[in-house]
């Protein structure tokens, strides 16, 4: 499968602020691609550029073989976007909204009706098609947003934090819909999210901060590289364990509760350590590295606003 999005050397400045310094990445056709970064990292700017809303100061973007800046209309026809905020008209019904937005893609009336039916079914908005968008619940609105983005059966679906602000049940439902679109319909999904358990299900992840790419890879690669498994031991005899660990030459931390944390390169290393202090263990736990660890390791622990 080829690359459906290729971004090279993307740059964008707002006055003196370099929102995007140098961003390169590629997205494989039919994959679920997660684009991560803390607030203010340059995610939204990058998406705004790729979706033809902002002109870059430098760099090149290819989407489905079309050049950004030259074939903008073709790009617009091949992408669908679910924005962070709700952008449909609250006073109109979901169906009217879909009709109006669908007409912008130059479809005939018959084509449009089929497209609305398909999109409504995929996104599960059938039951409230005739209700005003403004009267829907948050989850229903999100589904309507997704239906709108699917109206022209785009090649790439951009989702900008699609599950933010939803309750856990709705979040799960929206997320399953996204996965289904990618797995069953072969749609390329480009996703930004703050939920690492969602990112962990992506095929490929790119993490950016301060306008630059920090790391890219599959979730597994990133976890192996930037997060380590951890062995936690609560000893019976404190000093004995400390001496043993020093003898073994292992780096460790001891927290206030008297629990020793030992970083592991491989999960199985835990067995060797445990064998040597079997008698001294009051309690133990082996924790796998998570995408959360990867993210925090790469972008630091400070809180951004």
């Amino acid at each position: 499968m080829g690359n459906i999005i290729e971004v090279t050397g993307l740059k964008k400045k707002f006055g003196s602020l370099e929102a995007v310094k140098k961003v390169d990445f590629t997205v494989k056709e039919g994959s679920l691609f997660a684009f991560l970064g803390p607030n203010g990292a340059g995610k939204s700017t990058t998406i705004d550029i790729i979706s033809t809303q902002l002109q870059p100061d430098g760099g090149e973007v290819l989407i489905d073989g079309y050049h950004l800046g030259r074939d903008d209309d073709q790009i617009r026809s091949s992408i669908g976007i679910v924005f962070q905020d709700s952008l449909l008209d609250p006073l109109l019904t979901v169906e009217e909204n879909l009709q109006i937005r669908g007409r912008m893609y130059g479809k005939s009336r018959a084509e449009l009706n089929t497209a609305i039916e398909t999109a409504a079914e995929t996104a599960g908005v059938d039951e409230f098609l005739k209700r005003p968008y403004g009267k829907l619940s948050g989850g229903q609105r999100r589904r309507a947003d997704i239906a709108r983005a699917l109206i022209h059966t785009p090649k790439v679906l951009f989702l900008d934090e699609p599950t933010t602000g939803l309750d856990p049940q709705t979040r799960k439902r929206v997320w399953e819909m996204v996965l289904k679109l990618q797995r069953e319909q072969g749609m390329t999904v480009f996703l930004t999210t703050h939920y690492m358990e969602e990112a962990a299900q992506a095929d490929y992840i790119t993490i950016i901060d301060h306008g630059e790419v920090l790391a890219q890879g599959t979730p597994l690669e990133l976890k192996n590289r930037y997060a380590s498994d951890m062995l936690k031991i609560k000893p019976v005899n404190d000093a004995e364990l400390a001496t043993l660990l020093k003898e073994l030459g292992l780096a460790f931390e001891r927290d206030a509760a008297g629990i020793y944390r030992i970083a592991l390169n491989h999960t199985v290393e835990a067995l060797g350590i445990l064998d040597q202090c079997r008698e001294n263990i009051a309690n133990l736990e082996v924790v796998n590295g998570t995408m959360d660890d990867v993210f925090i390791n790469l972008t630091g622990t400070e809180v951004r606003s």
Partner: protein
Amino acid sequence: MLSIANRNLKIFFRDRAAVLFSLLAVFIILGLYVLFLADTLVDSLPVFEGASVLINSWVLAGILAVTSVTSTMGAFGIMVEDRSRKILKDFTTSPIRRSQLTGGYILSACSVGVIMSVVTFILGELYIVMLGGELLSLLSILKVLGLIVLSVLASSSIVYFITTFLRSQNAFSAASTVIGTLIGFLTGIYVPMGSLPEAVQWVIKIFPVSHAGALIRNVMLEHPMEVSFSGAPAGAQAEFTENMGVVYHFGSYQVEPWLSIVILLVTTLLFFGLSLLNVSRKNK
């Protein structure tokens, strides 16, 4: 472009508050007249026959000029809202040309202006007929309809120019309130212009929408004036037309209808041109 215009029309007419608010100035005018101005005006006229029909026709003509401004303003409110709520993003990421989008907004504003003005016109005429006045002749009705279109074009271009500067919902509400209130004075409708100071009269005469008002008055008052001034002393009608802003004079030069029409057309072109300049300046 048509689908965008269609959308805007749907949104505008579904938002009852917006529709009512866009007629705010009309209600102010009606209130003023119903409560006290009508009687004072009728009393001050040197005529007896058909005085109330004459005054009511005069008020209606003024209201039509004002409606063309306030209703298009209401319709352009959708554009400001799309901008401030970022709904615009959804359009700019679709394969639709910027010009089609802008055209859609302008088309919908003009349609709203014409629809609201025509409705006002019909209701006003019904009221005048109920009072015992005569319905306008077919030719005059057609003339008024033509003038409504012309006046809506000129007004919407001015309003569009103003809204290109407005980024937020608050700024828009403030602007539309100010305009809705001022417009009655600017077009010489709240108070007959003859009773205003010379300087204010000049402002009225220079303001393009007043010319729409004068043209509409010209058509609508033609017959009522014949009735009312048939037995009146010479010069009474001339004084009336001057005082009530049916014809304007720049010094001793009397503004002919064709000149008023030219003023409206030039205004339309000028302000659409300025708006385009302003919009393209911002897009860079």
